[in-house]
């Protein structure tokens, strides 16, 4: 067993332990913190495997973005007061059975698959790792189309998240009473509109970061990759502020109007 393997096992088992704790503890905020640690552990694993850019992305996107968003989610739905985040024992046993069956299948297959540890690329390139340039070329080369489609996906997500999360549609008359069982907490929910709008920004940052690489690639590959992809590629970053600016003020106005209304009776 090489030293790399030993360290991989060490970090891996820490990561796994954090993951298991995240899935097992009763307090949801604690679970989130364990989850964050597990993600960091994964980032370390990435770095050990020579994927330093991805390790950075992992920290930036997951630990910085997703975990924070999820904490927002927990806070805003005020569910941190409820501690019963996990289900009853029989459900947990059921869940454990399923995951153990799956794990058994995977382990069995891993142990029966020959040649996993002796691949051609393992010795030569692996230690050097994949350079950022190589990654950028791949992202805008063979994966260029997928990249464009991804930007459409993020656009759809953004539009959808905004339209679902906002309390009131722009232009909608405010006379209607909100439908919902829990009217007490509604003022506080208003605040959610803006973080939810901010979420797509985080999502779009993947696109943005990768876009940074585009000029380099264009120069390096000396390919005429200029005109068309820009249409959809710049769509998402371009669209986002527009939506932000139009929706947010209206939303805030609506929120103010609503809270005023809610205060009266």
């Amino acid at each position, binding site marked *: 067993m090489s030293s790399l393997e030993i360290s991989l096992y060490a970090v891996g088992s820490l990561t796994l332990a954090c993951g298991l704790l995240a899935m097992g503890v009763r307090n949801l905020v604690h679970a989130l913190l364990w989850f964050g640690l597990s993600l960091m552990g994964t980032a370390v694993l990435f770095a050990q495997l020579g994927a330093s850019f991805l390790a950075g992305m992992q920290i930036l996107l997951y630990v910085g973005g997703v975990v924070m968003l999820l904490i927002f989610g927990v806070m805003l739905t005020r569910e941190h007061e409820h501690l019963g985040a996990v289900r009853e024992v029989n459900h947990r046993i059921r869940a454990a059975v399923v995951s153990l069956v*799956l794990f058994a299948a995977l382990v069995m297959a891993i142990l029966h698959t020959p040649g996993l540890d002796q691949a051609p690329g393992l010795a030569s390139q692996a230690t050097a790792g994949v350079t950022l340039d190589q990654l950028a070329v791949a992202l805008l080369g063979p994966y260029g189309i997928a990249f464009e489609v991804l930007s459409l996906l993020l656009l759809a997500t953004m539009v959808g998240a905004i339209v679902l999360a906002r309390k009131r549609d722009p232009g909608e008359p405010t006379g209607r009473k909100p439908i919902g069982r829990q009217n007490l907490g509604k003022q506080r929910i208003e605040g959610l509109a803006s973080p939810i709008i901010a979420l797509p920004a985080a999502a779009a940052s993947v696109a943005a970061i990768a876009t940074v690489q585009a000029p380099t690639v264009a120069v390096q590959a000396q390919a005429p990759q200029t005109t068309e992809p820009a249409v959809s590629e710049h769509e998402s970053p371009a669209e986002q502020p527009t939506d932000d600016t139009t929706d947010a003020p209206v939303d805030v106005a609506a929120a103010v109007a609503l809270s005023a209304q809610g205060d009266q009776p």
Partner: protein
Amino acid sequence: MNPLISAALVALGLPAALALLLAVVPKLRRTGKPAALLSILGSLLALSAAGWLAATWLHDPKQVLDLTTSWLPQSGKSMSQVGVHLDGISVSMLLVVAIVASCVQLFSLGYLSDEPAPALGRYYAYQSLFLFSMNLLVLAPDLMQLFLGWELVGATSYLLIGFWFTRPAAGKAALKAFVVTKFADSGLILALITLVAWTGSFSWNATLPAGGAEWLALFLFIAVMGKSAQFPLHIWLPDAMQGPTPVSALLHAATMVAAGVYLIVRADPIFAAAPHVRLFMTDLGAITALFAALIAMVQTDIKKVLAYSTCSQLGYMISGLGAGSLMGGYFHLTTHAFFKALLFLAAGAVIHAVHSNELSDMGGLWRKLKFTTVAFVIGSLSLAGLPGLSGFYSKDLILEAVHESGNPLALGLLMATAGLTAFYMTRTVVKAFFGKPSHAAEHAHGPGPSMTIPLLILLVPAIGLGWLAGPMSKLYGRSYAFHLDTIGMVTIALGLGGIALGWLIYGMGLLQALPRAFAPIARIANGSTVDDLWALSYSKLGMGLARAIAWFDRYIIDGLMNFLGWLFMWSGQRVRTLQTGNVQDYLYAVFGAAALIALWGGWR
């Protein structure tokens, strides 16, 4: 275009055009009478076209004419042909359908005179649709078009059984007929699938792989069992009597139920290569014949008697075809169509007169309905196989064929059925037309001309068609000359015996009649013992057996279908309760299944 083809197209297209007209012009449909007259005119024109065709073919039986266009072209070649195919077989069936349909449409005018005008218009729209569908089936050049007609006929049957849809029983019966025949139709669909999978077309003359013909014939026969009401899929037919009586005459006695027999005749090349299926057909037909005849003995509803009698006669046809006698099966189809239509229409006249289907509400009707009585009696005698009437010749042909095929079991069952048939028809005749009139029968009124004329028309072939067996056989590409041998004489004896027995028991009253008839024996055998024994054996054993079989039919065969329905319903409920609404249970199912198939994937 050949004028003969044009005539066939008239017979096919005119009813279709009328049905379409009545469907899309509600105003016309709602007028009732004019719509009815239009439809009758259409059927008469179709009849004259069919008559001309039949006359031509009687003159030149070997002629074959086709007008087809390819449908479902696939990869360069054509899978299916639609159009008309005229030969002796299709032309003779066309004529039978046209005659019976015209008579029934005419008869309905009087029978349904009390219906509101929109309902009458609707009825005639269905009638025209039926005529079109049946002609489509009859003239089909290949199995696909036949299937099209087959399904349309089924759908029309469904509509007509449920004609009085406000009666819950009618709706239920229509649904039952639909589901049972649809179940059987999956056999036909399987046949289509296998045929096209093996040969790439729907022609029944294609060369099949080894053993293919047996499978194909089996699938086709499953469909026939449903459509032609063979045991145990006959259960829909008695219930189908919920429709108006002329409908029963047309669809459920004379033409539609015979479509199954017609299919076997058409697909003769396939059945000819399937000896096992044919043996099965012979036996099942004979079983159905006896089974249904036994049930008919104890029915109290005049239409149910005729319905079971239809099952029984269809059993004859199937048995004959199974024995390899195309002529016998097909000729019996033809004669049966006429005399059974006659019987049903006469029964319709009776029902119209007394406003009841129950035999107990009838009795002594011959005083009031003299002509109807004559028609019904002649129809019964033809059905019972009295020599000289048409039913005798066709039945004799079948029995001869079964005898020659060396199947003594089937022959015995069919012979017994011949006696029973005569017996239960005598019972019906006596109960309905003779004896003491019931209250309703006292006030019965005679049928109008629109009801008597069809009876008169149908009387002619019911009596005389048997004499035409020779020329008819040429249409089927066979030859035939009547000769009476042992089988025929035994059949005659059985028929006469059945009639005599029925007359003794129901006409004269058993308890008075038997002591006198068996008096010498009774004296020797110590008084009234034989009498009692006979009474006992008859009432306890004979009728008991019939009742037991009727019970079996009602609760076991029918019950089996109901049980299947219940089983599906029950499992449906179980599937429903799986849906707890808790998304985690759903996730559990999803990931449980994923884990299991992953286990499989890793193991492989």
